[in-house]
Structures are given as C-alpha cells and as structure tokens.
C-alpha cells in the first residue's frame, strides 16, 4: 500500500493545476479582512475570527469543491490516458488503487487546511485583529488538521463516483451539488449529509460562540452519517471496479 501511495505522489509531478488550487486556501483568510470588515479592528475574539477566516466557507464550500475537482482529476486522468489497464496487470488491486487515491486526497486536504491556518494567523496577528496566543493558535492548527482529515472522508462518495465513471462531467457536477446540499441540509437535519455532519464534530467543545443552531450537537449520529456514506461509497467502488476489470 505504501508503494502505491508513493507512486500516486510521483504521478503528480509537474501537475501545476493541483498546486495552484492550493491558493484557494488563502481566499477566506484574506476575504475575512475585507468582506467581514475585520481590517482596522483590534482585539477581536480569536474564535470568532477563525470562524470566518478558517472554518466557515473554507470548510463547507471551498475545500469540498477543490477536493471534488482533485478527485475527478486523479481518476479521470487514469481513464483518459489508459493507464488503469496497465496498473491492473502489474497487478494493483482495485481497492488498493482507490485507497491510494484517497490517501492523496487526505494529505491534500490536511495541507490545504494547514495553509488556511497559517494564512489566518498571518492575517490576524500582524494586523492586530487578534492577539498572539499560543493556545488559540494551537487550537486552530489542531482543528484545521482534524477538519482536513474529516473533509477528505466526507468527499469519499465523490471519489467513488469519479472512480466509477469514465468521464469528468458527472463527478464535477456532483461535487457542486454535493457541496451545496451539505450547506442547505444543515438547518434541516445536519446528520443527513457528511459535510453538515462535520459541524457537531467541529463545535463539540462549544469553543465558538455566536452560532445559533436549532439542533443538538451529537457526535454519534454525525459519525454514523460518515460511516453510512463512506461504506456505501466503498461498496459501490468495489462492485463497479470489479465488474469493469
């Protein structure tokens, strides 16, 4: 498996678009300064600043869309250049192939969130919006890494669809629908969709104030939601890839 993961990263050499997409990690920290009018304010509660700069739209919209595009690219390129056929006769197991791609998505998501965390600190501390405080920075880093990992699991169904289709249009379109569905379903029932199920995990210790949600934060149904979606995705990939081969 380690060999497979290593080769997955070798395949990404000279893929500029994949690295350019990481720039999206800087979007919300900078937008928070301007759009949410933090620029000029001082001594803002760090949790409130992090909420907009690092967690809000980045976690629920930007990163899921970026990861959806990444999933589509990783899978579509194998079909487009007919390399999957060469991999099967190495042999590479279908599930090993799928999970090695997932591992790339996982590392990418964590990297993305760490860049967001760094940009948030750089936008907040030097401008005086938030004070330098190790505990709040460590909280930000810890949650960003955690969320990076969780979002990659939330995107597993999109990776599964990308693995099972030969084109890029369906997984790309589904990414948009999936990301916005998570956003829309949050006020209805946050335990229906993996992206909305991230919210109780993110807010489990109630560090962030000011969020008014009509539902209770319960970890178990959130984890269960992830399990159901991810197991269904893995089973779907297993069946389709076995048939295709």
């Amino acid at each position, binding site marked *: 498996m380690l*060999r*497979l993961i290593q080769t997955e990263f*070798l395949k990404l*050499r000279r893929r500029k678009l994949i690295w350019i997409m990481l720039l999206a990690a800087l979007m919300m920290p900078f937008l928070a300064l301007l759009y949410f009018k933090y620029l000029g304010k001082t001594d803002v509660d760090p949790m409130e600043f992090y909420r907009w700069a690092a967690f809000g739209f980045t976690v629920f919209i930007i990163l899921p869309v970026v990861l959806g595009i990444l999933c589509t690219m990783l899978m579509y*390129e194998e079909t487009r*250049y007919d390399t999957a*056929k060469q991999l099967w*006769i190495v*042999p590479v197991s279908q599930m090993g192939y799928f999970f090695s791609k997932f591992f790339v998505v996982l590392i990418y998501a964590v990297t993305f969130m760490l860049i967001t965390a760094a940009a948030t600190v750089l936008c907040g501390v030097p401008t005086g919006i938030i004070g330098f405080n190790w505990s709040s920075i460590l909280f930000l880093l810890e949650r960003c890494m955690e969320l990076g990992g969780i979002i990659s699991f939330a995107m597993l169904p999109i990776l599964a669809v990308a693995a099972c289709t030969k084109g890029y249009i369906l997984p790309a379109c589904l990414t948009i629908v999936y990301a916005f569905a998570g956003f829309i379903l949050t006020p209805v029932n946050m335990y229906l969709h993996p992206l909305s199920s991230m919210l109780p995990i993110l807010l489990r210790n109630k560090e962030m104030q000011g969020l008014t949600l009509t539902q209770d934060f319960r970890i178990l149904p959130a984890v269960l939601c992830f399990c159901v979606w991810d197991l269904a995705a893995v089973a779907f990939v297993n069946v389709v890839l076995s048939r295709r081969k």
Partner: protein
Amino acid sequence: MSDFLIETRQLTKNYGDQTVVDSVNLHVKKGRIYGLLGRNGAGKTTIMKMILGLTPITSGEVKVFGRNIKGREKKVYPRIGAIIETPGFYPNLTGSENLEIFAKLRGTAAPNAVKRAMDVVGLPYKDKKLFGKYSMGMKQRLGIANAILHDPELLILDEPTNGLDPIGIAEVRNFILDLSKQEGKTILISSHILSEIALLADDIGIIDHGVLLEESSMRELEKKNSRYILLQVSDIPKASLILERQFHTQDYSVSDNHTLRIYDTSLNMAAVNKALMMEDVAVISSQLCNDTLEDYFKKITGGEGIA
C-alpha cells in the same frame, strides 16, 4: 503441466447479440513465438484481454501457466509482460519516470532495471522529454520497455510494431526474436501485418471474424502452401485439352484468359511446352511458384488479402 503456457478452450466473447470471439482453442507453446494474425477487428485484442483477465469471458476457459488465471492474478501477472492496444502512460512524466512508477509497483529488485529496459528498446534513459511529447513510435517502444521491465517469462504483445517506422519495426522484430531465441521467452504477438508474423512467428493462428480458422506451426504452414506451375499461354481451352488428353491431369485451375495454375508439379514442363507449341499454342511464360502466406490467408478467410 502441459507444454502450453497459454491454452484456451472454446473461448467465447459476446457483446450483446454480437459474438466477437467464437469458440477459440488457442495453444501457445513454451519458448516459442505465437503469431495471432487477423484483420483489424478480427478479435485479436479481445482474446488477449480475456487471456489477461482484463475483460470477462462469456464462456470457455483460459489457462495460463497451466491453470486458470482467475483468482491467481497476484502470482501470475508478475510472470507476464503485456502491451494491450496503445500503451498508456502519464504524459506529465518522462519515459524513465513512468517506468520507475511501474518498477516500484512491481517491486522490481534489479536497481538498473529501468535503464536496461530503456536501452533494449533504444530510448534514452533519464531524458527530459515528457511522455506527452513522444512520437507514436517512442510510445510503443516505452510500452515494450514496460512489458520487459520485470523480466517476465511470457510476453503478450498486441500489435507492438504499430506506429513504428520501418527501421523501428526491424529493430523491434530483432529484439523480439532475441528474447525468444536467446532468453527462451514465450511470446504471443498479434498483428494485422502478415509479413511481420511471417518473419517472427514459430506458430501461427489465423483469426477472422472471431473464429480461429487455422492454427499450426509456420513449418507446417509452409508445407501446406501449394507449389504450382504458373503457365501463361495464348489459348486456354486448347491448353486445357492438351493437359487432360496428353498428360492425363485435371489438377489445374484457370486464373484468367491467359493463365493456368498446374498443381501437379511432377509434370515434365519441357514436354508440356513442346506439346503446346506443336498444337500452335504460344507459351508466353512458365514458372514454378509457391503460394505466399497472403495467398493462404486469402484462401482460408475466403476474401481479401491483408497488409
């Protein structure tokens, strides 16, 4: 274990109502080059894909190394090198980088395996040219390099000379012959280029519309190819009459208004020529001929020739 490295029994593949491979019994002997000859779309690639387990079999059986491949892929694939259709590689990587990926995945132990494979096919090692910028011939060579990277016992090569220039074709041919004769590798090669198969193969299978029409060694095939006397004369009816009455043979055929093919090569041609001239039949030419593989292909497929 039988002598056959690959053996298929009643191998059949249907796509919906269409049968693309029909009850094929193929036998590839150890250490030999088996040429699968057929027109484009005859079913060669489908057979190779079924042998490799890349496409499901509708019915029949495939044995590789004496046993069914299904469920034994992990043991069998490392002993096989294959190119199926156009070899696919990552266009953003160089040839060496592409092969390094496959070497890593295969766990190829030899440290210089990539360099050796690239040297064999005549591609520069550690060249900066990306695969996406390769010509068709270079892509094909890299595909062959990938197939031999792990030093497999069995090579399955689907049209390996596609896109190569004449010199490249000759190089690949010599290299395939070397692999078989010097290293004892077993090779199943498909082609629609008849001359290539004729120059390479020890055994040949002729496939048309999914049906394996003929399977034999090249030596047997050469024996089967009929020898005949090609006779060009001014008057075919008169010449036919002379052959039947004076030489008591009906073993001939009329090709056109001036050409006869006499299959009874024991006839004394000097006597035949003399008899024809005595009856005022002008003999334009007379020569002993052999049917080519193309003639044979035409004969058994009952149609047009092949490249």
